[in-house]
Every structure is written in C-alpha cells, then in structure tokens.
C-alpha cells in the first residue's frame, strides 16, 4: 500500500537523457521553467510542449508514467483552474450568484493548468532519469560557489543523499511495524479522530527509535571509514561536460530565446 508512492522515483535507462550530466539537467530544468513563465501565448506553449514531448520520447518515459505522477496534484490543479475560471477580469460572458465567467478567465484557467502540468512533468523528467545520488552530486557542484559565503554545501548535499537513500527503508519499516501492531489487534483505520491519533503511537515510537538507531549506526560506519566532511574529498566519478551537454545547453538557450521573441511579437 505504502509502496505506491513515486516520490522522486528513478527509472534506470541508457538513453541520451540518462547520460546527460546531472548539472546539465538541473540547468536545463531551470531554463525550461524560466521559458514556461515567460510564455504568454499558444505558440510558445506549443514550443515548450514539443520540447517536453521530445525529451520524454528520447528518455523512453511513457506519457502515462508522467501523467500518473500528476495524480497527487489533481486537487491543486482543479482548484487553480476553478479560481481562475470563476474570478476572471473583463466582460462577463455569463454570470451566476457571485461568479463571473469571462473570456479572459477561461484563457487564464487553461494556461494556468497547462503551466502547472508542464512544470510538474518537467521536474518529474529530471527525477525519473537521474539517480538520486547523481542528482545530489550535481547539485553540490552547482552550489559550490556558495561555499565562499560559508554555506555548508557539502554537508547539505550529504544530508540530502542520506535522506533520499532512507526514504524507501523507512517506508518498508513503517509497513512492517504496522503489520506487527495489527497482529496484536491495533486498529489504525477505525474509531474517532482522537482514537486514531492515539493509535499512531505504537507505530511512531518504534519508527523513531529505529530511525535514531540507524542514524547512530550510520554515523559510526562513516567515522570508521574516516569521513570528515567535504574537505579534500575526491570523487570516484568525476563529472565532466561532454558534447551532448553542450547540445542540451544550446537547445535550452534556443528555447528561451524563441519564447522571448514570441512574447515580444505577441503571436
């Protein structure tokens, strides 16, 4: 049951998108988001959509997979659409009670929904094609300049990799403890709200105890292998930009430029 969360799920593969440097993908994603927020008309949305479709085709990620990632956001999407639809500015086409539906409102609602969906799909493209470890590696290298202002970049990225690494473990553990307590007659899904909150104790206490125990063991294991922070640490996998990365940068720049031009001419 808990296994179904696709939080930052990674689908291993051997496509050009998978082979891109994680830094490239992060920068590309930022560029893509900028383009999305600059886009104002159908032509630019179409352009961005084509980019997204092309990337997902290259990465062998099925549209169904991308869309299924949207499911948890359904509520936000519908809510945004309704707000935009019901409170649009301009001449009302149709009025009832306190709502006014306008041409501008419909326009806004459609674009807003498209924007959110493409934003989320773009972000999922990144996590679907990049393993969490290489993602944090890329993030650390990109943020490296911030070390100058005393931001503990290495420590932050180490924390992030550890957190990502342990999400599945904790989910599995939650499942196990839940089963064990159910076997002793615990009921997690019946009763009043207060009863239910109390029923969580047998789950949360062992979960926290386990998390602290794991943290302790992990710290010891890291110390035994002489971990002492990022200072002077070298990597086994050196990240290097290759031709394909420069091609991606060029594509990203082109996309932003095209969207700017379209915005300027108001097509």
């Amino acid at each position, binding site marked *: 049951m808990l296994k179904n969360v696709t939080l930052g799920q990674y689908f291993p593969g051997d496509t050009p998108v998978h082979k891109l440097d994680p830094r490239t993908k992060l920068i590309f994603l930022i560029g893509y988001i900028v383009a999305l927020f600059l886009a104002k008309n159908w032509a630019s949305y179409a352009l961005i959509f084509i980019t997204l479709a092309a990337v997902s085709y290259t990465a062998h990620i099925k549209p169904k997979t991308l869309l299924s990632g949207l499911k948890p956001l359904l509520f936000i999407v519908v809510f945004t659409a309704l707000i935009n639809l019901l409170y649009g500015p301009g001449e009302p086409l149709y009025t009832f009670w306190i709502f006014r539906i306008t041409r501008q409102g419909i326009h806004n609602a459609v674009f807003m929904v498209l924007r959110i969906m493409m934003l989320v799909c773009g972000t999922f493209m990144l996590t679907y094609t990049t393993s969490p470890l290489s993602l944090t590696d890329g993030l650390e290298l990109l943020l490296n300049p911030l070390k100058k202002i005393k931001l503990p970049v290495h420590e932050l990225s180490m924390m992030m990799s550890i957190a990502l690494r342990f999400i599945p473990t904790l989910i599995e553990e939650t499942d196990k403890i839940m*089963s064990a307590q*159910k076997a*002793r*007659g615990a*009921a997690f899904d019946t009763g009043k709200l207060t009863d239910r909150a109390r029923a969580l104790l047998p789950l949360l206490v*062992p979960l926290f105890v386990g998390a602290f125990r794991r943290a302790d063991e992990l710290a010891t294991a890291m110390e035994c292998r002489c971990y002492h922070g990022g200072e002077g640490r070298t990597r086994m996998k050196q990240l290097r930009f290759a031709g394909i990365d420069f091609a991606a940068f060029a594509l990203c720049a082109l996309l932003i430029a095209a969207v700017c031009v379209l915005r300027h001419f108001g097509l």
Partner: protein
Amino acid sequence: MPIIKVESLTHVYSRGTPFEKVAVDGIDLEIEKGEFVGIIGHTGSGKSTFIQHLNGLLSPDTGRVIIDGTDPASSKEAARDVRFKVGLVFQYPEYQLFEETVYRDIAFGPKNMGLNDAEIDEYVRRAAWFVGVPESLFESSPLELSGGQKRRVAIAGVIAMRPQVLILDEPTAGLDPAGRESILENICNYHQTTGATVLLVSHSMDDIARIASRLVVFSHGRVALDGAPADVFSHAGELKSMGLAVPQATEIALALKKRGVDIDESIYTINYLRKLLVSLRGEVGKC
C-alpha cells in the same frame, strides 16, 4: 476439521508493475489442531508472505484461507476475530516494542481484545512466565533490555492474547546459542501446556528437526515437501538442490552409509545418532 485450511493460495506483489513478483504460488495445506509444524525454505521462498495470510494481514490474490471455519477475507469482523485467534510473531519482533514499561507492552494485545484489568493482569503474568521474563523487569523500559530479553518480551506480547494458533517467524534469528535454545524450549513448553497449534518458521534444520512433529518445505512459493521429519530428511539430495542443508546428524549418517556402514539415513537428532553409533560399535567389537 483442520484448524487451518489453505486452498490454492497465490499472492503476487506489485502486480502490473516491472517489479511484479509471485511470492506464493498455489499452496494447498491443512493443519490439524494441536500440531507442531516447522516451516523451512530458502530466503525469499515465500514463508513470511504465506504466514501473513493466516491471520488476515494479507489477502489472497487467488484461493482461500479458512481459519477454524472462518475466512478472514470475508469481512472486517472476521479478520479481527481471526487476528486474535492466530497470534503472529514477526521476524525481529523486538522492533515493535513501544510502551514505557515491559508490563504495558505485553498488555497491549489483551487490552485490544477488550478484556478487563484483572483478566489483562492474569494474561500478562502468564505470558511473561511462559517466555521467562521475570516480574522484576515489569516496570523497566523495554528499550533498556538486552536483545534476547527484548525478543522474549515481544513474543510474550503475542502469547498474552492466548491465541489458539501461534506462528513465529524465525524467532531465534540473530540470538546466541544459549538464547536460541531457551526460546525454543519456551515455545515447546507453551505447545505442550496449552495444546495450541504452533507453526515455527526457521531455516535452521537442527533447531526445527528436534521439536516439530511435521515439516513443510517451501521452495519458490510452493510446498516442495511435507511430512514427518524423518520422511523429509530422507530426501537429502532434493533439500540440497533447494539450497537447504540437512541436519548434521543426517549428514553424518549419509557419509557413513557412503562408506559402507549399515545405518538408517533418515535419522536427524544427534542423540539418536549417538545411540546408533554406540550400538554399531558394539557389533564391530564382537567381530
């Protein structure tokens, strides 16, 4: 009427995804009241998945499970009923302890059954006695105990519900030999005193051979062998091909037989082997 009846039970994890896995694949099994059944099988053979069907924690994908005449999958009430009838001790059960004191942790199950305080007290003390948790520990925090003691407290937490069927998933994993020995003894004692049906999952042949009266061998989600220990261990070759070892005593008997000693190869306890060897030596001496 058998107390546990399993008909062509199948369970598939993550159906319809790339991670699909048939964990239990068409199992038929009947277990009579009061039997002591050992379940063995290599890691990943579906033992843990199977036993979670016996108290309704997992529902069959196909097939049925009938416990003492009720199907836990039929309704929520039936599932709850069966959960108190069939006590399930998970692997590494010490990680489920959560209360402030040992006493209250053992009392969690009986409390959920809706018993009154006097009954709870009686059930808790009896359960603690069965697994050898002294009353002097009742007020300590379960987190302060040693690994072996935690394990005992956790087992007591299930026994305290006085289940008619007690299922234990590798209860001795990760314990030292002395701890293993005494927990097995406690389980035997519980079986004999209460007459409960006991299912013991283990992959230590030597442990299980000594105390179970029937062995069920799992392999790749199916029942590969089922019978009295002597019958099962006479299939030494098959067991080995399933990645399982035969008990040391059987191993020695087989080796002796290979060298031409006339010895019964289906023996499986060290004690019996010793007796046989002594009598053999007597014969040799005569010649």
